[in-house]
């Protein structure tokens, strides 16, 4: 298949991309790194921090409807399950090993940790019976996917600023965003929702944008989550099997009009909006 060509096309483009510039997306000033992994802002590097999403999007935009944009990219991106370029393969490998180490650590420290967590658990992380040490999530594919989602959230300027401003011991549950625990058993929908809300909460620590556009409330409306924010994240009985599109959440609170229902539907049904970029 065209795995190799795709990789090389991207590589061949790198040298051109290095020196061209794409308009930053609305969200790109919040992202710590561009798609090529280089740090954004606070640096006087030439050609280092360009958002390469635009390149991918120009190649793949014919396949996706316009409403399919995630908050963190300038446009649709390719969603191959396994990146063919060596850079990505090695990074994925590294992440996989990291997750395995985490698993080992969790297994060894498990019982002790869940005791502590029971005392300081925050309302938003959901109450599941997985707080017992022997009921943790062990499926590697699930853990890797979750870790990737967590990494996207941590790879933001907002997160950097947050952890500098609020040391762990000063965090108040409910007030300060807490990274969802990838080892707990949650339904797919519950987990995705926790991640989403966690990231929205992190936006409070976004660096001030020059154009004054970056307003947390604006962001919430953009995601269409305005009415969803108040919902308790507690879906212990939902099955995890597929990611069926769901308008269920919208009808729960009795209101059926959001400003951008199409967008919300799409984001709800999106499997891995961020998995696609690498």
């Amino acid at each position: 298949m065209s795995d190799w060509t795709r990789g090389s096309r991207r590589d061949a483009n790198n040298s051109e991309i290095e020196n061209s510039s794409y308009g930053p997306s609305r969200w790109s000033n919040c992202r710590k790194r561009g798609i090529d992994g280089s740090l954004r802002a606070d640096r006087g590097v030439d050609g280092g921090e360009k958002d390469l999403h635009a390149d991918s999007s120009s190649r793949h935009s014919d396949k996706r409807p316009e409403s399919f944009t995630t908050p963190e990219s300038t446009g649709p991106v390719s969603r191959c399950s396994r990146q063919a370029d060596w850079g990505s393969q090695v990074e994925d490998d590294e992440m996989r090993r990291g997750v395995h180490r985490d698993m080992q650590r969790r297994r060894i420290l498990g019982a002790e940790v869940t005791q502590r967590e029971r005392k300081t658990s925050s309302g938003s992380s959901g109450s599941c019976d997985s707080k017992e040490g022997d009921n943790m999530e062990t499926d590697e594919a699930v853990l890797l996917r979750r870790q990737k989602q967590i990494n996207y959230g941590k790879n933001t300027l907002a997160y950097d600023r947050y952890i500098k401003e609020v040391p762990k011991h000063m965090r108040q549950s409910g007030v300060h965003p807490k990274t969802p625990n990838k080892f707990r058993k949650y339904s797919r929908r519950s987990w995705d929702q926790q991640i989403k809300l966690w990231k929205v909460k992190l936006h409070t620590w976004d660096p001030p944008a020059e154009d004054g556009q970056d307003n947390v409330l604006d962001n919430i409306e953009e995601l269409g989550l305005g009415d969803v924010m108040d919902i308790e994240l507690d879906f212990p009985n939902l099955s995890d099997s597929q990611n069926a599109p769901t308008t269920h959440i919208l009808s729960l609170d009795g209101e059926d009009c959001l400003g951008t229902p199409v967008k919300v539907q799409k984001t709800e049904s999106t499997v891995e909006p961020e998995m696609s970029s690498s």
Partner: protein
Amino acid sequence: MENPTDDYKIQSFDLDTQMLLKTALKDPSSVNLVKVSNVIVDQSLKDQVFSKEAGRICYTIVQAEAKQNNGSVFRRNMLNRLQQEFKNREEMRGRSLQEWVCYVTFICNVFDYLKVNNMPMVALVHPVYDCLIRLAKPDALMNEEEVRKNVDCLVLQLHRIGEQLEKVNSPRMDELFFLLRDGFLLQEGLSSMARLLLLEILEFRAGGWLLSGTAHKYYYSEIAD
């Protein structure tokens, strides 16, 4: 007083580039790491001396960047450049045998130095094998000039990374050694030097990637007059 950066063999670069590399080693986020990785790859393809040790400077920059800001720009770009060259390797080999040999030296060196959590980079295993096997194919052993370059490179790399390679994929090492045996036995007109190198590497692997004391004496001792 010794300048530690001499270890990286960067003297072949012009002074500006040497400065760039030195800065990359100490303060990676202050330089354009894409450019740095390109500079290193380009030079590795031209300068055989540099290609033999370039993995080391790559390793240090990767570590420095990870430590400084948890980034991996340099590694990602360097690997993707390597991949790009790998994809065009036949054309490279046809164009310049010297460049091809430098490339193989470099990618093996990177495989040697750049580990992920102390494990070899899985993504590089097959490409490295592909390269080494290419060096042992009959058409690489045909004329004197080719043989010398190819076999020299091949045995050097096997001495350095053969054991690691075999550990991560033994069948492909078998595949390579089938070719080496064939080359030793069947290749017509192979120079005695080439046969010597091949025999030594056959014995080296057979000994578990070690030469026995007597074998070492045979191959490496000065011949007493």
